[in-house]
């Protein structure tokens, strides 16, 4: 039954055999074309090169004395501080504590936001009851709620996890509701005509359909969770990267402050790449 006009699409990533230099030229050309396509290797190369240029300029500016080191220490000074903090100040322990807090709050937020967001989109009564409240709380600045959270939960771990949860849950729940809303009704109707009940519609169709965007949104909100870490860890904390940064700030140890910030950035980068890998593995069909 197949014919010339009704052929499968060419497989992505498969290109006709061609010379190595021509492939490289095409990949480089793709970098400069509007919405052009390049190879992943070339793109990684560009990313590393761009980072090296920025670091090089920064190092040169610091060494030339254009910027006072207490405001912006050189990359080599930050690297030195990072080494000292790791070998002498238990930075690994603080990283582990912060990571634990962030993941505890994030998993709690996800475990609550996914079912609530799905229910908000699926049943109007839940949406109508919760959406205005969530919208209201979503706009409250997390730092403004620090005193309240101390009154409610004291100065222990609960407060820190609560503040991180607060910054994540209310955003995530609306994103999940939106993901659910975007499940094409055709999928739902096809499943209904082949006999799916409500539970089967949810598991076999809705969750499968929203899977890729849901994982993307989890990835984005996990990033937000890290951005609230400093706020959570300046509240009577004695551990965590936020605490380390805050302590360093008190004694104007700018290289250590920068090192703490860099650590958060690196953790974010690695986590993001791992979640992207997960996305590619789970959703090969995209």
């Amino acid at each position, binding site marked *: 039954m197949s014919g010339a006009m009704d052929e499968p699409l060419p497989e992505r990533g498969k290109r006709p055999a061609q010379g190595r230099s021509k492939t490289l030229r095409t990949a480089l050309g793709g970098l400069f074309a509007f919405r052009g396509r390049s190879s992943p290797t070339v793109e990684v190369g560009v990313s590393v090169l761009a980072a090296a240029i920025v670091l090089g300029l920064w190092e040169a500016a610091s060494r030339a004395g254009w910027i006072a080191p207490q405001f912006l220490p050189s990359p080599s000074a930050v690297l030195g501080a990072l080494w000292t903090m790791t070998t002498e100040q238990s930075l690994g322990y603080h990283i582990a504590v912060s990571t634990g807090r962030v993941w505890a709050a994030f998993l709690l937020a996800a475990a609550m936001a996914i079912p609530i967001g799905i229910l908000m989109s699926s049943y109007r009564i839940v949406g109508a009851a919760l959406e205005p409240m969530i919208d209201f709380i979503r706009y409250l600045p997390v730092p403004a709620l620090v005193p309240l959270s101390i009154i409610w939960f004291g100065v222990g771990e609960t407060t820190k996890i609560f503040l991180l949860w607060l910054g994540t849950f209310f955003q995530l729940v609306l994103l999940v509701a939106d993901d659910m809303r975007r499940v094409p009704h055709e999928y739902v109707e096809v499943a209904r005509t082949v*006999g799916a009940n409500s539970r089967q519609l949810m598991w*076999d169709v809705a969750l499968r359909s929203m899977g890729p965007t849901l994982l993307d949104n989890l990835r984005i909100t996990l990033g937000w969770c890290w951005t609230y870490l400093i706020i959570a860890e300046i509240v009577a904390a004695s551990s965590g990267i936020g605490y380390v940064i805050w302590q360093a700030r008190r004694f104007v140890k700018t290289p250590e402050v920068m090192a703490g910030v860099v650590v958060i950035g690196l953790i974010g980068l690695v986590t993001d790449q791992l979640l992207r890998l997960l996305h590619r593995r789970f959703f090969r069909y995209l």
Partner: protein
Amino acid sequence: MTADYLRFYGVAKTFGTVPVVRRTDLSIARDALVVFLGPSGCGKTTLMRMVGGLDSPTEGWIELDGGRVDRPDRRRGMVFQSYSSFPWLTVAQNIAFGMRYRDDLTAAEKQERVRHYLDLVGLTDFADSYPSRISGGMRQRVAIARTLAAGSEVLLMDEPFGALDALTRERLQVQLRSIQKREAKTVVFVTHDVEEAVFLADRIILFSARPATIVADIDVTAELGAERPLDIRETRPFFDLRNHVLHLIRHETSEAA
């Protein structure tokens, strides 16, 4: 053919205060390929969705083989223009999805049916491909196979070839007629393309602009016969019938304007 297989009894539909389908009485024979033709937005899709049990009539009711239609079930399968197959399932899994909730078939029987319908729609070589890797025409064939595998007696097709290029569309029309006759299924096909309607239909029900009202009931088989080779489009009877239907639909559209 059973003349009164699918029957509409005074079916009307109103959305809020807007009438979409005016009181409709209609009878469709078993194993017929009936095309609902009308201007865009006239309400023909709404009428078809009511056959699927996806919408309820505001007035009247629909019966399939003597039983009242009040909810979706696998006896009436839908094929849509877009999102017709599940992207996370392979071609074979999409076809098997039609039988996913059937307890009356063993796993081996389900597998056998998947093989049969893969072969019927010519997609055996693409059984393990995902929909994103096959063409739009193939995706529509997957949807047809899934509906057949589900055991649907009536195929409800909402402009399924609307997004395809002209040649693929033509080929799928030929394939649909051949499958429909071979599998002895009743098909209700919604389109606003006159040539597609004349080529495909045993019978055309022509609707007015909204609210949908039947303005003509054309027995295409009586005019063109049951056999529809591709080159029938170049024959005088086809040409005349197409012009006649076009004239009716133009008249209808200008009346509404």
